[in-house]
């Protein structure tokens, strides 16, 4: 694209305009920052001012340089990087960091209190020795309260793995608040979270900004950006393509890339009541997990009856831990410990993968959330994709490779990409390859487990478009089970089943479930999604 010079011309013209109401000095400023690794620029010519109390969002697809820019605000760069340009930080501009996976920065061998106490102890050095311990503890408890963590006393004694994902995130936020950070960099704080958790994160970050702390939000979750951001910076391939006040950017995006990013989501094929034959039927399914602490097993899922018709897309929605994935695994034969039956064309499927014939294995295919983990990192993607046809359909290797290439290119992966190893493909590309691998089995039912939740908007839309096309092209041959926590994604399906705490609380056509939910849980899920939308509307006023 030749419009790469545009933002440089545009940025200075716009900045004074957005700065006029605030006369404050920036806490951190990046000027013409360029970060190069092995001669390849990851971040190129980024200029950014972070002002107290404002929320600045960096948006863009994965690999656009958001995280590198965010870490540059902390004064950190990837090893071996060549950095030019300027990072200017105010003297008291302490920066806190809340990474995408908060568990990674919590020490697995130490209690939650360890780092918090160390941070606090550095601040109470002026007190007499006898008072230091109590003063440090008081500071720690206050920071946890500010991060909206109730029951802090008990929490401090726990290890990170004994906390939920949301609690971990708030503990990491408490570390930053305790430090007295004036700026907090939050990297994808809502990725992979369900609607209720997302709205809590949004409230939390808004509260942080209200205390006069500058928040830098790195996100591809546009709902969250809309609800929170004062300033939005759109990045692509390491460059800023457009920046400005959130309101202006949303109402009148100037750059075509921004327009594409903000575009509406696609719809699956018309919601006509496709009354195909039931392909997959679930009858009286009760799944259990072994529970080592109780020396027995606990029931995690009850699904008395669920049907998937041919040519149909069924979305299974619910919060994390509601049993969605267990249901999907029961269908695919990956979870054996269950009662009841899963019928394919009226014939019961064996519970275990080992009991299923090749044809049965091929008929129900599973695509995992983490595409990277689902590939062997040492072999080219193409071999792994072709292998399905060899194993499950007895195709000879040469023909399988040809078919794999055709399928991959149909999904937008050319031969050059296909011959690489998984490490050299992006998350979105790998997810396409994973789809291709499943499709090579010529499945009747494709189970997609949160396959878009780790992806940015543009890539996600690409994958969902693909699924739509697949469903359309293969006519009644293929049915989809879409496991998701995202109601926007679920809205693309023909039917929706709602799971809460292992119970199937509601099922029906997508239109009916989304517009006239019968169960209170479905209503609360819908409300939290609406609230986020409303939040963005009110903040724009």
């Amino acid at each position, binding site marked *: 694209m030749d419009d790469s010079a545009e933002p440089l011309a545009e940025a200075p013209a716009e900045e004074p305009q957005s700065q006029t109401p605030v006369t404050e000095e920036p806490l951190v400023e990046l000027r013409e920052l360029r970060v190069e690794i092995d001669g390849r620029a990851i971040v190129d010519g980024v200029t950014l001012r972070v002002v107290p109390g404002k929320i600045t969002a960096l948006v863009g697809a994965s690999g656009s340089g958001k995280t590198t820019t965010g870490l540059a605000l902390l004064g950190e760069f990837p090893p071996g990087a060549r950095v030019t340009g300027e990072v200017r930080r105010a003297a008291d501009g302490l920066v806190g960091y809340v990474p995408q996976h908060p568990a990674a920065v919590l020490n*697995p061998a130490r209690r939650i209190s360890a780092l918090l106490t160390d941070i606090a102890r550095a601040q109470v050095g002026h007190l007499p020795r006898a008072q230091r311990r109590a003063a440090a503890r008081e500071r720690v408890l206050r920071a946890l309260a500010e991060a909206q963590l109730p029951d802090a006393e008990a929490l401090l004694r726990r290890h990170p793995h004994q906390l939920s994902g949301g609690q971990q995130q708030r503990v990491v936020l408490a570390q930053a608040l305790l430090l007295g950070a004036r700026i907090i960099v939050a990297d994808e704080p809502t990725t992979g979270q369900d609607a209720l958790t997302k709205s809590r994160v949004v409230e939390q970050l808004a509260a942080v900004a209200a205390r006069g702390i500058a928040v830098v939000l790195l996100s591809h979750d546009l709902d969250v950006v809309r609800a929170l951001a004062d300033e939005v910076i759109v990045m692509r391939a390491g460059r800023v393509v457009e920046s400005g006040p959130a309101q202006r950017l949303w109402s009148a995006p100037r750059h075509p890339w921004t327009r594409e990013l903000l575009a509406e989501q696609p719809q699956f094929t018309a919601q006509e009541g496709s009354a195909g034959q039931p392909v997959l039927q679930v009858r009286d399914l009760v799944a259990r997990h072994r529970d080592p602490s109780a020396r027995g097993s606990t029931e995690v899922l009850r699904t008395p009856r669920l049907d998937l018709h041919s040519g149909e897309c069924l979305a299974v929605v619910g919060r994390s831990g509601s049993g969605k994935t267990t249901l999907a695994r029961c269908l695919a034969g990956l979870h054996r410990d269950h009662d009841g039956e899963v019928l394919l064309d009226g014939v019961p499927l064996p519970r275990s993968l080992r009991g299923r014939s090749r044809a049965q294995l091929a008929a129900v295919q599973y695509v995992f959330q983490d595409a990277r983990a689902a590939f062997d990192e040492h072999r080219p993607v193409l071999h792994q994709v072709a292998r399905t046809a060899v194993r499950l359909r007895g195709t000879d290797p040469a023909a399988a490779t040809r078919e794999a290439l055709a399928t991959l290119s149909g999904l937008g992966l050319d031969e050059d990409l296909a011959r690489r190893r998984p490490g050299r493909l992006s998350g979105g590309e790998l997810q396409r390859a994973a789809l291709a691998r499943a499709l090579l089995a010529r499945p009747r039912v494709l189970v997609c487990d949160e396959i878009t939740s780790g992806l940015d908007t543009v890539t996600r839309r690409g994958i969902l478009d693909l699924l739509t096309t697949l469903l359309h092209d293969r006519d009644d041959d293929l049915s989809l089970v879409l496991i998701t926590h995202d109601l926007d994604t679920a809205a693309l399906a023909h039917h929706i089943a709602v799971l809460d705490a292992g119970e199937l609380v509601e099922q029906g056509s997508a239109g009916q479930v989304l517009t006239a939910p019968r169960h209170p849980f479905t209503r609360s899920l819908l409300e939290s999604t609406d609230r986020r939308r409303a939040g963005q509307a009110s903040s724009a006023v």
Partner: protein
Amino acid sequence: MSGLRSFVARRLLLGAAQTVAVVLLVFALTEALPGDAAVALAGDQPDPARIAAIRETMHLDKPAYERLADWATGLLHGDLGTSLVSGRPVGRYIADGFGPTLLLATLTLALLVPLGFGLGVLAARHEGRLADRLISSVTLAVYAVPEFALGVLLVTVLALQLAWLPPTAVGYGTDLLGHPAALVLPVLVLLARPVCSLSRLVRAGMIDALASPYVAQARRYGISGPRVRYTHALPNALAPAVQQLARTVDWLLCGVIVVEALYVIPGLGTVLLNAVAERDVPVVQGLAVVFGVLTVVINLGADLVAHRLAPRAGVAA
């Protein structure tokens, strides 16, 4: 916490079963050895009539299962039996031999822990640089030398040629503390390999921990270098090291036969060696029980410490 308690209970039960199995196996193996205590006692003039007489007084003519049952009933009352050869209680044998063994083990451990962890942390801090390369190559080289070879080498150089230290502990009896010079060589040999394996494990764990995001977070928030190293990084490197340490302690208490034989130290290893040579079955069995119990307890302790250090891994038995 109840999960942990039931884990300990299960492990102790399993440990008891394992100890019983070891005792049965040892009994069977000693039975399978050619000759018995009577033959060994009869010495150079194996007169069959004399051997039969000795057998009768020792009750060796009874069937094997009866002898085992007699010994087992005694064990339940806390009686390890009496030696066939000397008639002394087995308990005394073990108590006498335990002193020197425990002394050696304690000394070795007291030096091993700071040395192993210190070298490991030092190497990890200077990963890839001179200190690391030096420590890594020397530990690898020393680890490759078998203990008997190192023992003989040290005796030859330090005791026989330079005459700095006594070559063995012959003549000092069990009062080794009174003659510390005699302990230097055995402790050196005992230290050599464990220091290497321990420091290499600590080094690997520390390198991982120092490169981890949680250490980066601690540094980012201004925690001082030593505090990051010792209170945030090191605990993560400890879990595998503790398991290795337990194996070492187990080895020090139950099986330093080569070193004890080389330096003529009257510890448990020497007691075991003599008892096997004399077919003194009760003593061998008594030692098997002691070794079994020690092994079970030490490893359980290590598992509990490791669980505390790596609580995520959970416990398995």
